[in-house]
């Protein structure tokens, strides 16, 4: 409607403008004054209105300006030629203008599509997880095409009553996701959607998924490398720590077969077989504990546990029964909710470590309540641990530097096992130490109020897997 009004107004203006010009040029040549109107209308409102404006201009020129004026007749036959020429020129101008207009429109659309593709690429490849980026990309498609709610779902999804499913395929032609669009959308939008948006979107989603896969592969590779390191260390430990007691047992067994044994020797050798066998069994237990923790199989069976009981059991189980362990449990310490067997293994390993490095001096254990937690400190009077070592001390197979005859007798597994069991039960373990002043291993366990069980915290043993 606006187009028709503009056309009428412009033709009227041109008709009026010719009157003052009649004194300057022959009337027949002044038809050009209508051409800007034709051009303008064609460029903005398209070919049909442009052609109509051409015809209107020709009629107005004839009626108002070509003699005899005031009528649609022409006296001079040369003026018919002029009018015909004008009409042809005007029609040509309309067509050219229409072409330019449609090209500009097409260019706009292409740019919008390119902008859309770039924005979607940023969403999908910009770093966040593909699944969460899909929602943002879908919103952009909906806004850019001016259609209702759009969704992108991974894999193949069926359409429903209100939404239609379009396949999004990667470069290899396999479907990676589904684009869900409203059932009713305009035909030209439909065209753009299928010809331009869907292929680009499919390619981008495929790339994003590939990137996700590569990223998780990289994470897996790193984890595998770490677990390889652990396996190498395990092999070395198995090679040395398992072979040593086996060697002693085999050698003692051979020696026991000798005819020349004295009674004392026989007793010594059979003691050796028993002791080395027990040492071997303890090491095998530790290796099993560690592999259970590393495989994530150490699910705690939680129950109300008294730390005092756990600590008594742990210190009674020490391989050196004469070891001097002083236990102090403050009276207000409530039971904790944990796996008693796990905690016993954890404290047994901590105590064994403390006794080993305390050089015969007493080891003390203090348990007290601290707000919503129970804190147990295992304090030895050993040589202490330097800062560099403190960072590595909980790693499997890490052993402290050699100091005296006790050096190198540990498995290098105890602290790793202690940490694994404490963390599996929702607690933490840290070490505080000053070289020369002994070390404190601090175990902190969360408290639950009896009768108000809290949801079990998610946990993962912080060991390399």
């Amino acid at each position, binding site marked *: 409607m606006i187009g028709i009004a503009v056309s009428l107004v412009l033709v009227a203006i041109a008709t009026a403008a010719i009157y003052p010009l009649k004194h300057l040029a022959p009337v027949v040549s002044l038809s050009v004054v209508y051409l800007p109107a034709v051009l303008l209308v064609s460029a903005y409102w398209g070919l049909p209105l442009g052609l109509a404006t051409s015809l209107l201009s020709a009629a107005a020129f004839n009626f108002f300006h070509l003699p005899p004026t005031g009528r649609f007749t022409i006296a001079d036959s040369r003026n018919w030629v002029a009018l015909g020429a004008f009409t042809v020129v005007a029609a040509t101008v309309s067509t050219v203008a229409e072409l330019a207009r449609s090209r500009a429109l097409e260019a706009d659309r292409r740019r919008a599509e390119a902008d859309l593709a770039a924005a979607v690429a940023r969403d999908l490849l910009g770093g966040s997880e593909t699944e969460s980026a899909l929602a943002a990309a879908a919103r952009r498609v909906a806004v850019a095409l001016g259609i209702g709610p759009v969704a992108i779902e991974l894999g193949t999804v069926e359409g429903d009553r209100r939404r239609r499913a379009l396949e999004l395929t990667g470069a290899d032609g396999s479907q990676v996701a589904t684009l869900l669009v409203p059932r009713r959308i305009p035909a030209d939008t439909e065209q753009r959607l299928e010809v331009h948006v869907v292929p680009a979107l499919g390619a981008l989603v495929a790339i994003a998924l590939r990137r996700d896969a590569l990223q998780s592969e990289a994470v897996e590779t790193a984890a595998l490398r770490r677990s390889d390191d652990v396996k190498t260390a395990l092999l*070395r430990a198995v*090679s*040395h720590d398992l*072979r*040593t007691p*086996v*060697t*002693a*047992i*085999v*050698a*003692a067994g*051979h*020696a026991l077969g*000798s*005819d*020349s*044994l004295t009674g004392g*020797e026989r007793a*010594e*050798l059979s003691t*050796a077989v028993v*002791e*080395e066998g027990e040492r071997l069994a303890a090491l095998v237990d530790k290796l099993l504990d560690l592999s259970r923790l590393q495989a994530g199989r150490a699910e705690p069976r939680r129950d109300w546990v008294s730390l005092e009981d756990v600590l008594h059991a742990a210190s009674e189980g020490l391989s050196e029964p004469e070891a001097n362990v002083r236990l102090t449990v403050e009276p207000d310490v409530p039971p904790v909710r944990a796996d008693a067997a796990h905690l016993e293994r954890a404290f047994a390993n901590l105590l064994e470590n403390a006794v080993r490095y305390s050089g015969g001096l007493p080891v003390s254990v203090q348990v007290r309540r601290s707000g919503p937690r129970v804190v147990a400190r295992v304090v030895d009077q050993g040589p202490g641990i330097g800062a560099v070592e403190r960072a590595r001390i909980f790693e499997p197979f890490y052993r402290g530097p*050699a100091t005296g*005859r006790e*050096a*190198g007798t540990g498995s290098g597994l105890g602290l790793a096992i202690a940490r694994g069991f404490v963390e599996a039960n929702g607690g933490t373990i840290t070490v505080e130490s000053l070289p020369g002043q002994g070390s404190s291993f601090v175990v902190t366990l969360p408290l639950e109020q009896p009768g108000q069980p809290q949801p079990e915290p998610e946990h993962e043993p912080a060991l390399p897997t």
Partner: protein
Amino acid sequence: MTAEPRPRVLVVDDEQQILRALRVILRDAGFEALPAGSAEEALDIAATRRPDAAIVDLVLPDFDGVELSRRLREWSDMPLIVLSAVGDEDAKVRALAAGADDYVTKPFGPRELVARLQANLRRIAPEPEEAVIRVEGLEVDLARRTVSVDGQEVHLTPTEFDLLRLLIRNRGRLMTHRDLLLSVWGPGYGEDTQVLRAHIANLRRKIEPAGGRRYIRTDPGVGYRFAL
């Protein structure tokens, strides 16, 4: 019991239990064990008691068995056997380079340990040289430089004969690549294990019946020994 004094063997290991067992095993094999729990103690005993041979564990509390082998070798020519639980080639090779004569991997069979010890002691007190050495079907005439297998004469190149002579005169003892290359090829060939491997392969093809007896044993990455 013979009137002859028993050969004394220094045994160095930080495991008391292993020392106890070895004392009995060595006594039954006709040796006297001199146990030491650390490298320092071993050096003291070696200086005061003059052992005839030593068995040294690679992992010791003060310094390791490689270093101990080097220090013992500085003034003693006695046979030195390394006991290693590590099972890693690198440590063995370092110990052999430091002067050890042989190694036994833990857990060891006592018979094997004793056999190695005796083979290495023969190096110190060689039996009177025989002109003809016979091992099962193999006959080596050192004077005439001829070799026959099951009565059939085999032709060996001079290098192959020299290799065989060296291995068979040191029956049971580990001969490192370096030992063999230096003795047979001379200085300047000490690292050329590829050449050695090729000659050993040829020698085996000639003297070992296909699928039958194996006279030459390989210690991978270390050397060869002639089977006892």
